[in-house]
């Protein structure tokens, strides 16, 4: 039955990773930004959710919108306070802006992490389950929450797909990712598209953070590791390619879970890291990326 347990855990973890990675890859695909404060954003959302559910006693259901709101606010703050000033800066040559944005978001992430640790203490917290209880699958006892979280992940990703492929607004995201100059030539306001992207990013990442708090527990100490996982997955799948990120998320989730079960939980992240290094040496555009 270990195989079944591995499968279920892989699926659960993979779905969570997928949600976390999708936002990251969307941000790179449309805006060209690698947000190294990604993990910190998730932790902020998680903490907010925990606080609303526990401290303020509003329960699990209210914690979700609170976490989402926290995610969006953090994302917009990242855009307005950190990223946009650098993009519009006249003091920096264009070629160096990317590096400065990477460094600045890294710093910003540290700032957020420290703030969370100061305000909430740095031990990890978990939010209470949205729906408490256990379900049985053969000989395995499964918390309903775990299943529910996976469904929520898939639901969110499906909603994103619908938005992008079936709405006018979503098509502008595809357009901006494919060719920003063309968007301007066709009269679209790129600034609006970028704002929309950051809001979507905040929603997706916030949701991932809230769910994470439920499954694994979240704490400020993890923000770095979360960012690392996200970019590993995104690079493996192909920077900017959402389908690639999804596949890679499940692949990494499975690799980690299998390693943890069959070898040792200590070294769970190694296979993915090794895979990352191999890919970067031999196929830097990732699984589905283009050169």
């Amino acid at each position, binding site marked *: 039955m270990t195989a079944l347990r591995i499968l279920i855990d892989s699926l659960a973890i993979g779905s969570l990773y997928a949600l976390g990675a999708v936002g990251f890859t969307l941000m790179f695909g449309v805006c060209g930004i690698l947000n190294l404060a990604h993990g910190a954003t998730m932790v902020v959302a998680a903490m907010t959710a925990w606080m609303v559910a526990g401290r303020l006693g509003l329960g699990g259901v209210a914690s979700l919108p609170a976490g989402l709101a926290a995610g969006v606010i953090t994302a917009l703050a990242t855009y307005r306070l950190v990223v946009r000033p650098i993009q519009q800066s006249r003091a920096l040559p264009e070629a160096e802006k990317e590096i400065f944005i990477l460094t600045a978001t890294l710093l910003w992430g540290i700032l957020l992490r420290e703030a969370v640790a100061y305000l909430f203490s740095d031990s990890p917290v978990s939010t209470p389950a949205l729906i408490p209880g256990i379900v049985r699958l053969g000989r395995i006892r499964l918390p309903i929450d775990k299943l529910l979280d996976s469904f929520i992940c898939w639901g969110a990703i499906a909603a994103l797909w619908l938005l992008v492929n079936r709405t006018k607004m979503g098509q*502008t995201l*595809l*357009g901006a990712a494919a060719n920003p100059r063309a968007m*301007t030539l*066709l*009269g679209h306001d790129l600034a609006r598209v970028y704002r929309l992207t950051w809001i979507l990013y905040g929603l997706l990442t916030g949701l991932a953070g809230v769910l994470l708090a439920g499954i694994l527990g979240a704490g400020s100490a993890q923000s770095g590791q979360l960012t690392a996982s996200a970019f590993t997955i995104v690079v493996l799948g192909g920077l900017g390619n959402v389908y690639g990120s999804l596949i890679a998320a499940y692949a990494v989730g499975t690799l980690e879970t299998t390693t943890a079960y069959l070898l040792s939980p200590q070294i769970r992240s190694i296979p993915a890291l090794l895979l990352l290094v191999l890919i970067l040496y031999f196929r830097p555009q990732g699984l589905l990326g283009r050169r």
Partner: protein
Amino acid sequence: MDALSGTELKVEGLTKRFGGLTAVKNVSFSLWGGEITGLIGPNGSGKSTIMKLVMGLERPDAGSVQIGGEETARWAPHRIARRGIGILFQHSRPLPRQTVIENIMLALLPDRLLHWGRRSEVLERAEWIAERVGLSEVRHRLPATLSFADLRRIELAKALARDPRILLIDEPFAGLTPLEVESFSALIAGFRENGRAVLLVDHNVRSVAALADRVIVLHHGELVCEGTAAEVTRDPEVRRIYLGEEADTASAKMPRHPAPPLLEVDKLSLSYGRARVLSEMSFSVGEGEFVAVIGHNGSGKTSLFNAISGFVDYAGGLVWRGSDMRRLGAAAIARAGIVHCPETRELFGPLTVRQNLDLAGSHLPRADMEAQLDLIHSIFPRLAERRDQAAQSLSGGEQQMLAIARSLMMRPKLLILDEPTLGLAPVALNQISDALDMLRKNSGIAVLLGEQNVSFALRHADRIHVLERGRITWTGPADRFRSEAASGYI
């Protein structure tokens, strides 16, 4: 150094393919010491590819490149450079953080990791070279503070420093005033006197005629003609390439009635960094008019269009339907009725034809969008067939059609078309031509066309402006172009 002679560079059967496109087809020529050769051809003729192949920046699919008798076609670029080739790029590339003299010193250094001492010798030689090209006064300044001509001088200085047996110069006189052209010509002639081989690469014969002993003409990757400047200019094949067929101007024109001006360009000037790209251009486009701006690459067409559509800053006046355009951003200008279809087409590659068109028509209410789509499908029936195909998988002609169709979805009052015929086969070209005719018949749209393909422009334009180095040098109706302006164009 004593004068060298003999074959310095020998190119034989050089061929290079990029995917399905053959950029260079079986080209053979030689350069001799003590001679200046011109390599000319319109945009897309393969000139830059040949330069890259010679410099080792690209590998040929077939053929050989011999420098001083040795086969160098597959060597690494720095090795080829050391063998004796120098290149003056089209755009100056000084190290921005180093002074002029340091930039020159760089060219004097050997490719070694350990280079102790002898710095004063290098410095002395660099100073001598700076003197020679006229940079002594500014030698301790940073490139950002220099004039355009001085930046070009740095490039020449670097070439002098390396004293290569072969020197390739891309667009030697672009952006220079007549006085500067004279002093540069003298410096280049100096290379010839020292027995070096010089290759001047440019768009038309006129720009290199004064210096070149011999001219080679390229078209569509093939060598078309070789001879002195005068011979080449008279050659009927070359005339056909640059001026198109004689028959073209006869097509029916719209009756000329006074058209209220839509776009007024008033003393427009533009510079990129230090390079003066447009100088006080003035003209206008009236409602329903078809105006063509003819010029080679580098004449300023694209910059002009970018200024009008709001992508670059400019000095001077731009008025659209009576109001000043300066405050509007690029997206706003597009929505106001001026739609720019650039040379690079800027399609959404991975998206389908339908998605490309939808993104263009998203500002319109549903009904209008459908109506516009119908119009487009009648003009470009091919696109209707390919609605669900990804834009990047379309053929060159279809991509151009999509680019134009997309612009039309915005229901522009003025359509700016930049080199629509670039890289297209004759069949596709005719389809575009027919589409433009149909467009003019069905809608009162005004068109501003930028082309180096003269026959295409002559076929459609009510009025022609010839653009050369950022200035309009001739204006008039299509039928008078050949008799009055053609010779200056080749």
